């Protein structure tokens, strides 16, 4: 029963809720439709990846790190291999650097289009979701063509990349960019002109420039508040020091600004990919990496679609790392959510949370405990549930053991 004293009551949004496709929990104090306070509980997706990395070899870690997150898999693995290469003192061939950049930017396309669709869904605009996810398939198909998979590309290895981009593939990339560019222009028009969308986005989730800096927001969330923070320019890695591009900022400081920044960033991304493909240097795609990495430490930063990925790797001379630290962009951005929801309505919560493009599996990483000892009357075991349902139907004259093959 809701607590009706003082007219305030708390509702749980998550860990399972239609607005969140990943588990996290917001405990929202409401007064009518107005949000009085929000408590965020993270950690539902902690899988122990940092500890697991310490127990595996560097080669295995590349694939483990890649699976921190499905959408920004290339971001995490690039950040990790860059750190290891820095410790080992490996000089990565230029062609490999360009290929990493191209894959990274293709990943940005599919991530941003995915975000736009999710944002549309959160404000009840499923048509936008269907259209953007349809168009996102173009980017996914290209990635599958080059890397051999739609997500978790497995492109990186220590010392370079595993697959080359052939001339035929390069041509396909260039062809795929044309419809993508056209569609993105259309989505910019939709997001800035469609009245119901503009109404739902502008003024929602406001966070000032000062607060953004203070709370340490990164990526499009920061850039939409006028903070020109972009690792690709500030701390260039792979081929970004050779490729011309603009850092897109916006000073709306709200969800509308974040949508505009992401969409305009896509237009930059198309330019960068075509520049990269045109100027792809010749040469080998990887250098041989030792299995044992000398002792040392390195920090690697990567501008993932959602913001700055921060990886710290410490080695001890063996083939296992001593310590791996991963800080995903959502952990930096989620701190702003409380600020953004001040004095807003319940209806704004889904879009405000979605606007930082949260990825909670990136954010949480450690150990899973199956609590099999603790049994209470609230928990029904799978077998009991099956038996219950069979009995329920049998009472009504249907024997499911004969129909559905249940045991």
């Amino acid at each position: 029963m809701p607590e009706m004293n003082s007219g305030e009551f708390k509702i749980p949004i998550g860990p399972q809720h239609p607005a969140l496709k990943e588990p996290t929990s917001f405990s929202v104090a409401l007064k009518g439709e107005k949000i009085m306070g929000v408590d965020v509980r993270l950690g539902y997706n902690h899988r122990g990846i940092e500890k697991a990395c310490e127990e595996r070899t560097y080669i295995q870690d590349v694939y483990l790190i890649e699976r921190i997150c499905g959408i920004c898999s290339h971001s995490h693995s690039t950040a990790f291999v860059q750190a290891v290469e820095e410790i080992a003192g490996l000089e990565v061939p230029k062609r490999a650097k360009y290929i990493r950049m191209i894959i990274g930017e293709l990943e940005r396309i599919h991530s941003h289009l995915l975000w736009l669709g999710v944002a549309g869904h959160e404000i009840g605009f499923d048509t936008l979701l269907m259209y953007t996810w349809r168009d996102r398939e173009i980017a996914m198909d290209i990635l599958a063509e080059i890397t051999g998979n739609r997500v978790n590309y497995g492109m990186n290895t220590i010392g370079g990349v595993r697959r080359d981009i052939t001339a035929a593939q390069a041509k396909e990339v260039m062809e795929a960019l044309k419809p993508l560019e056209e569609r993105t222009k259309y989505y910019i028009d939709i997001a800035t002109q469609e009245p119901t969308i503009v109404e739902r986005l502008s003024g929602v989730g406001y966070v000032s420039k000062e607060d953004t800096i203070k709370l340490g927001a990164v990526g499009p969330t920061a850039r939409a508040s006028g903070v020109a923070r972009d690792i690709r320019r500030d701390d260039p890695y792979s081929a970004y020091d050779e490729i011309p591009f603009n850092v897109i900022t916006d000073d709306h400081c709200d969800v509308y600004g974040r949508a505009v920044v992401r969409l305009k960033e896509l237009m930059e991304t198309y330019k960068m990919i075509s520049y990269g493909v045109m100027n792809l240097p010749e040469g080998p795609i990887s250098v041989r990496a030792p299995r044992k990495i000398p002792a040392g430490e390195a920090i690697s930063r990567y501008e993932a679609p959602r913001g700055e990925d921060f990886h710290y790797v410490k080695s001890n001379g063996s083939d296992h790392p001593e310590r791996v630290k991963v800080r995903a962009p959502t952990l930096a951005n989620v701190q702003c959510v409380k600020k953004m929801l001040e004095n807003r309505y319940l209806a704004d919560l889904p879009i405000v949370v979605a606007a930082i493009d949260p990825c909670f599996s990136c954010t949480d990483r450690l150990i899973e405990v199956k609590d099999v000892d603790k049994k209470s009357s609230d928990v029904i075991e799978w077998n009991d549930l099956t038996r219950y349902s069979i009995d329920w139907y049998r009472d009504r004259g249907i024997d499911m053991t004969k129909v559905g093959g249940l045991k």
Partner: protein
Amino acid sequence: MHILFEVFIFPGVLFLFVFGLWAEFFDRRVYARMQNRIGPPWFQPLADIIKLIAKEDLIPEEANVIFFKAAPVFALAAVLAAFVYIPLWSTNAIASFYGDIIVVLYLLTLPTIAIFLGGWYSTSLFARIGSVRNVTQFFAYEVPLLMGMLAPTLLANTWSFSELTAYYHAHPQYTLINLIAFVVCLISLQGKLEKAPFDIPEAETEIVAGGFTEYSGRLFAMLRLALDIEMVVGASLIAAVFLPFGFGLGPVAGFAVYMAKVISIVFLLSVGRTIFARMRMDQMIAFCWQYLVPLSMFQIILNLVLKGFLS
């Protein structure tokens, strides 16, 4: 005997079940095709209902059982009753009396109230918020809907559907005057049916399913049917009041014209929910009171002036 056939078989209860489910299919199919998807097959709504009927009814422990169970029955009964008074392909409805317009509008408000009560007494947090939103929204769209319906009746000077359609059938040129009211009523109907951009009471990403959150099994099937039939009844109402063509063409041609009218209204509603994002509650209320109410007010004044001019 004849009247029993008309009430229960055709064009009454049974026909409404079939047509309601088919209208839901049409709406979902068109919605899907406009989004470049395939959409559900024609039997999908029926399959959904059969599946739900076969399921166990789960009633929350803290819920008020009487209200929780009664709400879907009331909702379904009200929309079925309302249909009896709406003229379909002749100027005569199955039943009619002087003042039936008011009764129909009253009956059509019952599902909203029933869903509110059912949601409120299911004591789930999401259902309660949904119920409150339901009623809040009700006050926003019901006023323009009533005023929009009032305008044509003022011009026809009657409170009976049969006389209203007879009047417009005799003077088809006057229907053009009611164009503003037609648009207002169409938008209000979108609100009544809780379709985007007015699906605030059941906003999935905010409050799961609003008032329906705790419903399952047969009770939910009944609610679903009630909403489907409400769509058909609402569309028939608008067709009868604002599109009074094709009456007196005989049963077969008249039936075809009636179907065409209802389907095009359902199509317009589907397009509406495809091209807009969900509004927020404050925006929805502001929209209804700032635009729809003044527009329907203008229509009423226009019709009053015109009536004075004509007599």
